């Protein structure tokens, strides 16, 4: 295809992506270098029957004027990145000196918003992804051994948790595990503890969010693996059987190697999607116990006094995280592409 034709074909799509993905990233970067204006203060003298007092008040009009004139705020350089709400190096240093053990240090570090969110996001990503792969494979193997008539309905039901809006899915589960909901009440009876509430303990909240993550993503792994199972070649399986391999060995040495490329694909998708975990925290109202990077950004932007600087800084750090996460994949694809060309 000629360069010119290519350009015109790709133009609308590229324009949309430049305007609404690439430029916003630039805008985020610029915003991350600024902080909100401080309120303009004014000293007024109040004189009453008992004498005069000096009082400092906020000059709303002047503050508003300043904000309207320079909506970005004042330039702050990289200070947003190093402040307490983000990387917080100096706070971490102090904590490191003061804490007597590593556990103590982690406990203290969990009070810093960015690191708290980072801890949950990474835990979520790296716990949910392998579980999704395992559960998906197990279901796929199970469904594959079912009579054909049952497969369609099973797939239909399985698609539900995945396709449903994340916020809705998490709400549905949240209402059930509520201490007055069916699962919450069931757990209380099971544990024999009428005060048990999943919302109260950080550990239980984390587990609950991850259970949601697995519930909503396992169908994806299942469907992809199931499709892969349909294409497992017959000969190696038979050869393995003749060689005396039992069912487990056949799965381990024939089926799983065949599914490996699919596993890589699912892992890539899951890493990307789990790293931006956001809606479940809103749905489960779990922000007191668990926050993610995306949730932090949402929280900064919400409300009347949106903190654009802080939101933008967290966004930049999140994008950095995504790039680090994707680097191995990008390098691999680059090699494949070159191999295909040569």
């Amino acid at each position: 295809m000629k360069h010119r034709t290519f350009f015109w074909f790709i133009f609308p799509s590229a324009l949309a992506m430049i305007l609404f993905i690439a430029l916003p990233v630039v805008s985020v970067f610029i915003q991350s270098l600024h902080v909100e204006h401080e309120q303009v203060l004014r000293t007024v003298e109040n004189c009453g029957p008992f004498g005069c007092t000096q009082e400092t008040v906020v000059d709303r009009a002047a503050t508003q004027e300043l904000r309207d004139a320079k909506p970005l705020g004042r330039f702050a350089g990289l200070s947003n990145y190093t402040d307490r709400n983000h990387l917080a190096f100096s706070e971490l240093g102090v904590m490191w000196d003061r804490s007597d053990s590593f556990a103590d240090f982690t406990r203290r570090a969990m009070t810093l918003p960015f690191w708290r969110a980072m801890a949950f996001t990474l835990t979520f990503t790296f716990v949910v992804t392998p579980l999704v792969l395992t559960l998906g494979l197990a279901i796929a193997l199970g469904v594959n051994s079912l009579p054909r008539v049952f497969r369609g309905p099973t797939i239909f039901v399985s698609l539900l948790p995945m396709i449903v809006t994340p916020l809705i899915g998490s709400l549905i589960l949240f209402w059930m595990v509520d201490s007055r909901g069916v699962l919450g009440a069931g757990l209380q009876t099971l544990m024999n503890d009428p005060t048990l509430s999943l919302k109260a303990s950080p550990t239980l909240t984390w587990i609950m969010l991850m259970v949601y993550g697995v519930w909503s993503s396992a169908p994806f792994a299942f469907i992809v693996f199931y499709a892969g199972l349909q294409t497992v070649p017959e000969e190696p399986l038979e050869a393995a059987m003749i060689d005396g391999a039992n069912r487990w060995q056949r799965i381990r040495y024939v089926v799983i190697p065949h599914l490996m490329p699919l596993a890589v694909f699912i892992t890539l998708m899951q890493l990307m999607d789990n790293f931006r975990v956001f809606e479940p925290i809103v749905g489960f109202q779990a922000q007191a116990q668990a926050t993610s990077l995306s949730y932090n950004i949402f929280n900064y932007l919400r409300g009347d006094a949106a903190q654009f600087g802080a939101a933008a800084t967290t966004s930049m750090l999140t994008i950095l995280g995504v790039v680090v996460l994707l680097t191995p994949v990008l390098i691999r694809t680059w090699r494949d592409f070159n191999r295909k060309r040569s």
Partner: protein
Amino acid sequence: MAATHRRSPLLVTVSTALVLLWVVIAAFPFLWTLWGSFKVQADFFSLADWRNALRGTFTMAQTGSAFTGQGYEGAWVQEEFWRAAMNTMIVVVCVVIISLTFGTLGGYALARSGFRYTFWLLMIALVFRAMPHITLVSGYLLPFFQWNVWGHLPTAIIVLVAINQPFTLWMLHSFFLNIPKDLDESAMVDGCTRFQAFRHVIVPVMWPGVITTGLFSFLLAYNDFAVTAMLLSQQNQTMIPKIASFLGSTQVEGNVMFAVAAVISATAPLFVLILFFQRQIVSGLTAGAVKG
């Protein structure tokens, strides 16, 4: 498979049990919530006994019958959920149409051009695909306030189209790779321009792939919370942010049931979608995977 008749009964039992368990885990929350949406709050969130939700004790006491449509009436009429539903429909239809138009053109070009920049474009699209949507939203807000375009439906539509593009491009790109090159190239030998070849030869055969991609564009627009919650004003809200706003006022008795009813209402179209397009959704999920 030849091995079918040699399976031990134990294995069959275990795998069937596993699948059954999974089916229950996947479906029960939806059935339970659907059932509960026709009850009053005192039953669905029962302090005394969870079996009240099954028996409908309080529903009987308060409304005189075992099922009530109070939650639905409250959500759709009193809280004007229909307005949100309309907005969702407008947004979703526009997003699907526009992103498919842009995506087919771009995906076709990417599939037919062998230059190195094609690879880079696809890689950039992959990075864009991985970016959390909320990070982009934090970039939009300030400029949109300045240009006075914040809060309107068209703004949300064009933003969702752009966010959708990386995925659409990847999917249609791999789909067009499967259409033999000879098809459009022979048309060009016959004197068509590239666009005429696309218009008369490729368009008639591309529909299966376009429909599959369209389903996923639909899901992205329909399921979006980050963009619509932050970029739409109160009266332009779509369904998902509307449901989230129901939650803010849960203190009032009965309001939670509005949210429950709204949640079921918003799930219904997705249910119908799977019912009719199960095959396409499954093939779409695996399309990217088969390519590796």
